[in-house]
């Protein structure tokens, strides 16, 4: 049996602003990770990533990031992904004040 699949979200940076965005189930790019589509099937993850890679005039560098289900929607697993949902820790800049 294959290893259990860690749920994923598709994430990237927006072409114009460069900020972090997540792919939603209805094919939007949201700056709020909680709105992302949480994918728990490996084959579906591959398809969603392919879809994201096709949107090259909207986003840059899409990839699959580990995530888990939270109360309001998907939450980051790794600290790097957590920082991407917030912004830098030295100033109140980025998503922590913009969202």
């Amino acid at each position, binding site marked *: 049996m294959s290893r259990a699949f860690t749920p994923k979200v598709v994430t990237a940076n927006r*072409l*114009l602003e*460069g900020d972090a965005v997540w792919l939603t189930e209805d094919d939007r790019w949201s700056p709020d990770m909680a709105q992302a589509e949480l994918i728990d099937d490996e084959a579906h993850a591959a398809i969603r990533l392919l879809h994201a890679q096709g949107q090259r*005039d909207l986003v*840059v*560098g899409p990839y699959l990031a580990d995530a888990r289900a939270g109360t309001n929607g998907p939450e980051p*697993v790794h600290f790097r992904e957590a*920082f991407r949902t917030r*912004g830098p*820790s030295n100033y109140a800049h980025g998503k922590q004040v913009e969202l």
Partner: protein
Amino acid sequence: MYRYTDFDEAFVRTRVAQFRDQVARRIDGSLTEDEFRPLRLMNGLYLQLHAYMLRVAIPYGTLNPDQMRQLAMIADRWDKGYGHWTTRQNIQFNWPKLEDVPDMLEALADVGMHAIQTSGNTIRNVTADHFAGAAADEIADPRPVAELLRQWSTDHPEFQFLPRKFKIAITGSPNDRAVTRAHDIGLRMVRNDAGEAGFEVIVGGGLGRTPMEGKVIRDFLPRADLLPYVEAVLAAYNLMGRRDNKYKARIKITVFENGIDSFHDAVEANFAKIRPRFTGVDQEILTAIEAQFAPPVFADRPEAPFDAAYATDPVFRAWADTNLAAHKAPGHAIVTVSFKAPGATPGDATSDQMRALADLAETYGYGELRISHEQNVILPHVHKADLPAVHAALKSAGIATANVGLVSDIIACPGMDYCALATARSIPIAQEIALRFEELQVEHEVGPLKIKISGCINACGHHHVGHIGILGLDRAGVENYQITLGGDHTERFAIGEKTGPGFPAEGIVPAIERLVLAYLDLREHREESFIETFRRLGMAPFKAALYDSEDRADAA
């Protein structure tokens, strides 16, 4: 200071126009990211964790007041009102929008600046001693040669696709403030037995994943041979450097794998071929550049206001004791303006602070400013009589911190607060260490101590050459900090040794505190600095202080 010629001006403007067109084509979809990425990197534009980042070259760290004001304007208009001084004497803007970048580059071109070759596998911004042209210990100002190297390397067709990036540092002083032994090529001005000035040429130094001390490939190179010799080194590297593995592509690996002798032979063979082609045009250009770097006429007047302030104002005295360095001209001093206030982000300057510095340089500093690789700003020429006024103005701008060379004068790279390559954060660690030592009130007692922090193995924060180096890593999904001790970036160059297991974020500040307090117990006398004590005693007592205490639990 160097003023753009019509050629420079046209070159930079053309590049801006090209990039404007490339950005438009990226946005309208005619260029893919794969096509666009090398183009944006050629112009210093990165995509980081939260936004784009524009890295602007400050050649050999020198700025005039108009340029500083323009950086302030750019920060206000297209960024969030601040900029970040880097360890390569560049400035980075952390929040530009893609569409605005061509306008930012145009604004830079208006003051003779650009972002060309601040990225990519080319010859990067040439860095220099930040006290160049002012230091009392200097043989000659290295900046004319740095400018010559900049002109020669910019868009040099042979060196646009090197195996990897290539960094050159130059100093005109025997006291090495430019970290020449950790560069792909380091140039140190020296005199030969006949008293002529020339260069000691060092190759193959570097930090990063495989830190290596550069090796001397020529102990005395006549000044007129510099450009052909550097070209010979680059040509050898371009052929011999590995392109199969990015981690083995820097010249330090080329020199290491081939041995300095065979690399030397290849360079000398190239040099024999290349040298005759240099018929002296480069030297004519250099002479013209040198004229533009003629030192100002230093005023000769009494220093009395300095002595009065020094005698009566303890705050001024503390600042003067730490932030001034010896100047070559009588009555003058070199001022280092600290961008390391405890709790602040190392190297971040607000637009107001930039404007205050521009005003000070104009009023009291012969119109000159420098950025140091230690992420501070230098007013290289200030008459001592003006120092009380300068200090007062710095105080109102919030940049009069008296800590240069002390515990809280920490180098920290952007780390995982900004950098896409980071494995952990560096900025909060620097902030917390500085705040903790402010609380302890022992910084001046401790004396000279260099702490340097990198957020990943790439070592932009120079951690290997910190007296105390801190490297942020990702250990099983948790930020973890590894300590090295005994590094030195100067002429007594040394790469720090790992102490042992790293510390989690909550454990790193107490660990540094234990180290520093241990040093206070271990030193023979007040004048023995941290690094001297380490050299005398070695790792053992420091290791004991780090790991043998009851706080052992916080080592992971």
